[in-house]
């Protein structure tokens, strides 16, 4: 898998797409767990945030892998989409796409681009800020600052609105993407039905959870 020659074939690219997508889903799962702590227990939330922010393995191994994963995923997604558009240079005059495939499956690149725009804002909000505090305008370590910083982000209703809309689109992206990635890596068998149930539940509940957490902070501050 790792050799570059293999990424030349459409199937290999799809497998790479699926693996990067599944990796992002794993990340999303742990991110959701940490965020939910901000509702359950501010102290635990501060503790975990501080750990994630200063642990060298997280900072210098996992974080670069994550950034690479995100960049790889959307670059590959956009490239595959470009190739796919090229494969039909003359469009149908009348095409009934809804007759045989879901809206989610037909618009992965659109939901993906919205999620990308959101990630831009998210980076600006949290990551750039963190980098500034830690490495540029270096401030002393304060293991209790995270909870209040988080709440401040959700004061602005426009920002909260953007968050909620983005998570709706992420849910749509995952409603197709989660199961699709199993098909891409060749996993389609008697377990697929139960797996589909889990994938759909994850795709709806996790983004809904993120959105609810944002709303919770907005309305309780």
């Amino acid at each position, binding site marked *: 898998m790792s050799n570059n020659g293999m990424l030349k074939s459409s199937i290999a690219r799809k497998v790479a797409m699926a693996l990067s997508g599944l990796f992002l889903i794993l990340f999303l799962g742990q991110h959701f767990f940490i965020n939910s702590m901000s509702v359950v227990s501010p102290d635990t939330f501060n503790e975990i945030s501080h750990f994630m922010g200063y642990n060298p393995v997280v900072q210098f191994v996992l974080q670069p892998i994550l950034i690479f994963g995100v960049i790889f995923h959307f670059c590959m997604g956009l490239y595959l989409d470009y190739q*796919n558009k090229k494969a039909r240079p003359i469009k149908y*005059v009348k095409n009934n796409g809804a007759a045989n495939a879901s809206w989610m499956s037909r618009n992965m690149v659109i939901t993906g681009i919205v999620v990308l725009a959101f990630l831009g804002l998210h980076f600006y909000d949290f990551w750039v800020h963190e980098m500034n505090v830690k490495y540029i305008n270096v401030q002393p370590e304060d293991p209790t600052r995270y909870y209040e910083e988080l709440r401040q982000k959700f004061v602005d209703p426009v920002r909260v609105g953007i968050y909620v809309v983005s998570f709706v689109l992420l849910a749509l992206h995952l409603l197709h993407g989660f199961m699709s990635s199993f098909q891409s890596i060749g996993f389609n068998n008697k377990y697929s039905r139960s797996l589909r149930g889990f994938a759909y539940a994850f795709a709806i509940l996790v983004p809904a959870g993120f959105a609810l957490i944002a709303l919770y902070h907005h309305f309780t501050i």
Partner: protein
Amino acid sequence: MKLNLKIWRQKNAQDQGKMVDYAIDNVSPDMSFLEMLDVLNDDLIQKDQDPVAFDHDCREGICGMCSLYINGEAHGPDRGVTTCQLHMRKFKDGDTIFIEPFRAKAFPVIKDLAVNRSAFDRIQQAGGFISVNTSGNTLDANAIPIPKHDADRAFDAATCIGCGACVATCKNSSAMLFVSAKVSQFALLPQGRVEATDRVLNMVRQMDEEGFGNCTNTGACEVECPKGISLENIARMNREYLAASLK
């Protein structure tokens, strides 16, 4: 029945092509879609006009020649049928029907509604076969025991008639359903295992070279396939391909 047809007319591969309107009367609901086009063509010939070119051969759903993108769907609105098996009773009196050729870079238009699907032939030639000894000492196929379950699934895959509806309907013009059916029908049988590695690598390479798009698992192909070829075949081909490339 009276119908308004909007048909893609294109003189040859170089021509720009455009939709042309035709009114047609006295269509019987019992006609097949191709018979309806035959009536239209009779009429055009009577009027000294160029008849509409479209592909067909067996007219009983087994050869895969008939194509057509009808009202935005490959082989029209019915399920599990080819265009020759589509009946006019699926439409209503006064309907407007759009008729276009299968569209894909890899399926160039020859004329009007007829497209060149020889890209499929080249994919088949790249590996969709079993090499046998034809010296006269051929083994009886039944000499090798095959579990019924595998034989059934191989047969299901082998029912693909190579019509190209999967490509036509796919938003990416991907040929994965076709190629995976052709890979699976052999991959499931002991006779096919012998050349399995080369087969899947060569067929996928040829598929990519022909300019088909990448599969995004929308599942549209499975819905429109006249033979009900399952997406499980695509997953199987992905497994076969991964295993083969790691060898």
